[in-house]
């Protein structure tokens, strides 16, 4: 008998008499084996399903442990897709492979039940158990994972989410944001092999968000747990995501790096244009604590940003917002602008009927500056004009992700 | 002209006989009859609460006495209509052979099994049965083996089903079942006479009701009663 592939092994298990507790340990064994072998985490998803008038037809591959963001208009099919990935609804056809384990295959009739997948799922609508205290909600999934497979501590999660004072309460008396935090904690505590989050931060305040986001961002890097993250917030995507899956009407319109997908016109349109930004991958070159600056190397040269705590040579994503890019014909001394790049105008367009002008530049990489028609006239900009792009170091935003 | 309307409340054990007699009665155009068959106690209580009964036929004198005490019986109309015999029955396929004598070995015949009979606390047939067994000196030995049925028909059924190898019922009940046989008759002197009193309900002594009461005494009725195993008083 040859060594069966994962899908074959799985179908074999499905033939066994149906004993869930037993099964559970089987799955864990399968996963743990995988984790020890340090298989490179990846998602390979190809799904088809008809729901009423609505058809989901989505396929994407995301390589490497990281955050895969799913983005799309309301009703685009995001929740439908992650329900299938989590095993809560069965696709009509296709396959779902996570970290080299096939959890669904339409042709081979493989369909591992959700409890066998060990994916953490933060639902869009909370779904806390009303009959259990907050503490028992939190440990519900944790208790079902053998201590050896846990990679996250109860106290750590409770502190991070600021819910230690709620442990004895029941969900009915929690506020919206408190419920959401407990739901996040509950799925984190299962030490999942894939974490699925459906708009998890929607009802959290910014202060809490800025604590939770970096924590989530660390999971893939430090624990090799891939994350599938649904959000409407471009900020969250740009801060967190490695891969961006862009959906519309149930279909994957585009899949790829945040840098490329977020540059698409249709993406920009959905985010209202207002949020558009040029995203560049950079390498941490050096830190200058005295000047309060970190220098990032990118194809256009060096970008100075406020001091950040990242390892030298690590990569980090920098976002430059066109509205924060100033243009001048000469370089001026003694300003607060730490980043002044020489470049050339490559194109000018006027998307908003004369109230705004987008100037495309080439400063080694393509860059955008949004200015007023008046400024364009004053500077007499046209393709080929040599300009200086002025970017305040504090106006550059950095992603949480660095490797 | 207007045929009189008569309502007869009769003990359930007389269902067949009374139904047949009513057919004869209406055939003679003497009136239209409505019936209600239930246990004597239920009927008595209902009459006591003003039920629209004209004629009450009880399976035992006790409930007739209860109504009489409450002045619910038209004075002078009560008489004992029917009599009955008490019999020992067994399933049709039973090979049991019994003669009822004083001190006969009933307990031995039963072995580990039960004797089906009406509840000796209240079902008339059970009361008579207990008295008969006491007279015969065997009650003590079988008291713990009695399956006390809700009414005689339930006792009959237990024997029919073979759940009890023996039962004590009225001769009339034994007569309606094809699945049991009469093993023996109890001596008539082993228990008080079994009588079915009948009377008109007070205030209901209409000509129609009186006519029905009279009709019960006719030989035509008598024949019907005897067909179903009753004896006439």
């Amino acid at each position, binding site marked *: 008998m040859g060594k069966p592939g994962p899908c074959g092994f799985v179908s074999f298990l499905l033939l066994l008499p*149906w004993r869930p507790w037993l099964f559970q340990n089987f799955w864990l064994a399968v996963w743990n084996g995988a984790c020890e072998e340090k298989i490179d985490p990846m998602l390979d998803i190809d799904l088809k399903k*008809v*729901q*009423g008038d609505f058809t989901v037809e989505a396929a994407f591959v995301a390589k490497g442990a990281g955050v895969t963001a799913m983005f799309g208009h309301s009703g685009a099919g995001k929740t*439908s897709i992650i*329900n299938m990935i989590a*095993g*809560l*609804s*069965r696709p009509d056809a296709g396959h779902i492979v996570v970290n080299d384990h096939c959890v669904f295959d339409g042709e081979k009739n493989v*369909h591992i*039940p*959700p409890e066998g997948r060990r994916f953490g799922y933060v639902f869009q609508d909370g779904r806390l158990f009303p009959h259990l205290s907050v503490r028992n909600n939190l440990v519900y999934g944790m208790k079902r994972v053998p201590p050896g497979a846990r990679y996250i501590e109860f106290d750590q999660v409770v502190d991070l989410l600021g819910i230690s004072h709620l442990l004895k309460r029941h969900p009915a008396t929690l506020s919206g944001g408190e419920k959401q935090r407990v739901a996040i904690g509950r799925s984190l505590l299962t030490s999942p092999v894939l974490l699925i989050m459906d708009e998890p931060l929607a009802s959290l305040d910014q202060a809490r968000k800025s604590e939770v986001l970096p924590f989530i961002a660390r999971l893939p890097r430090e624990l090799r747990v891939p994350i599938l993250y649904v959000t409407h917030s471009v900020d969250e995507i740009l801060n967190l995501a490695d891969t961006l899956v862009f959906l519309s009407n149930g279909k994957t319109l585009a899949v790829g790096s945040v840098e490329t997908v977020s540059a698409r016109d249709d993406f920009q349109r959905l985010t209202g244009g207002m949020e558009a930004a040029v995203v560049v991958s950079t390498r941490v070159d050096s830190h200058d604590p005295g000047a309060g600056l970190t220098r990032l190397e990118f194809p256009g040269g060096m970008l100075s940003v406020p001091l950040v705590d990242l390892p030298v040579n690590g990569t980090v994503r920098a976002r430059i917002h066109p509205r924060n890019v100033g243009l001048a014909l000469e370089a001026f001394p003694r300003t607060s602008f730490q980043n002044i790049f020489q470049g050339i105008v490559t194109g000018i367009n006027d998307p908003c009927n004369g109230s705004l002008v987008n100037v495309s530049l080439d400063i080694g990489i393509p860059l955008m500056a949004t200015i007023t028609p008046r400024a364009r006239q004053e500077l007499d900009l046209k393709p080929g004009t040599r300009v200086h792009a002025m970017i305040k170091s504090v106006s550059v935003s950095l992603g949480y992700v660095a490797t | 002209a207007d045929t009189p309307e008569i*309502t007869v*409340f009769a003990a*359930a*054990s007389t*269902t*067949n006989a009374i*139904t047949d007699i009513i057919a004869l009665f209406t055939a003679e155009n003497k009136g239209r009859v*409505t*019936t*209600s*068959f*239930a246990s004597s106690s*239920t*009927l008595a*209580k*209902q009459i006591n*609460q*003003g*039920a*629209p009964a004209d004629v009450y036929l009880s399976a035992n004198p006790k409930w007739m006495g209860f109504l009489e005490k409450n002045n619910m019986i038209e004075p002078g109309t009560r008489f004992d209509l029917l009599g009955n015999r008490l019999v020992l029955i067994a399933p049709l396929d039973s090979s049991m052979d019994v003669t009822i004598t004083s001190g006969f070995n009933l307990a031995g015949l039963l072995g580990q099994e039960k004797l089906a009979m009406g509840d000796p606390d209240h079902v008339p047939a059970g009361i008579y049965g207990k008295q008969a067994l006491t007279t015969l000196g065997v009650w003590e030995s079988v008291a713990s083996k009695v399956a006390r049925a809700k009414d005689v*028909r339930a006792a009959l059924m237990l024997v029919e089903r073979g759940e009890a190898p023996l039962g004590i019922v009225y001769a009339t009940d034994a*007569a*309606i*079942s*094809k699945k049991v046989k009469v093993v023996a008759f109890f001596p008539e002197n082993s228990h008080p006479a079994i009588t079915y009193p009948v009377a008109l309900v007070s205030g209901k002594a209409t000509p129609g009701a009186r006519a029905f009461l009279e009709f019960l005494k006719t030989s035509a009725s008598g024949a019907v009663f005897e067909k179903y195993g009753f004896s006439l008083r």
Partner: protein
Amino acid sequence: MEFLKLTSVELEALRLSLWISGWAVLGSLVPGILVAWVLARKQFPGKVLLDGLVHLPLVVPPVVTGYTLLLLMGRRGILGKWLYDLTGIVFAFNWKGAALASGVMAFPLLVRAVRLSIENVDQGLEQAARTLGAGPIDLFFTVTLPLIFPGIITGIILAFARSLSEFGATITFVSNIPGQTQTLPLALYTLTQVPDGEAGALRLCIISVVVALAALVVSELLAGRMERRMRGKNRSHVGH
């Protein structure tokens, strides 16, 4: 299929049973829902008493209930007399009494099922209805009632089935008068009292079962349709 042809007596009993059970259910529906609502939602002194009273017909043997009805609602009964003087309605020894007896016996089952459903209603939806301008009675009819539809169906089925089989209370309260109070169970009882009655009894039994089964199927269809609508036709499900 000679066996399936009903005699006129049987037909009469069937007709009467349906009529009586129908009225029993109809008559207890509104008070049943009301009492269920009060028990589910209100706190008041004496609630235990009301609760106990509702359960009473379930707790005491049917014969006792029938006898109590006879004492209360009979022609000489405390309430019965007063009701007769007031409205001319008589319950004693007619189908109305039989319906009353059946209704009383079925009442606790109806109330319990409806109450269970009411307790399950998300009060957040009722609050939403109030902010949308619906008063308590309005919202009861437009939100609560549709949401407890499955419970009402269950209650009706339980009550109808219980009515259909009601014997002890009925025969005790209204006696066993063919064409007036002789329902299927009473006719069945009468048949067990006559020789060769078994076949007839079996027939009546089958009739009861068929009627109840039909009611059951209708109720399941109704509840199923409602459920499908509320859950979404292609609701995601967990496969095995």
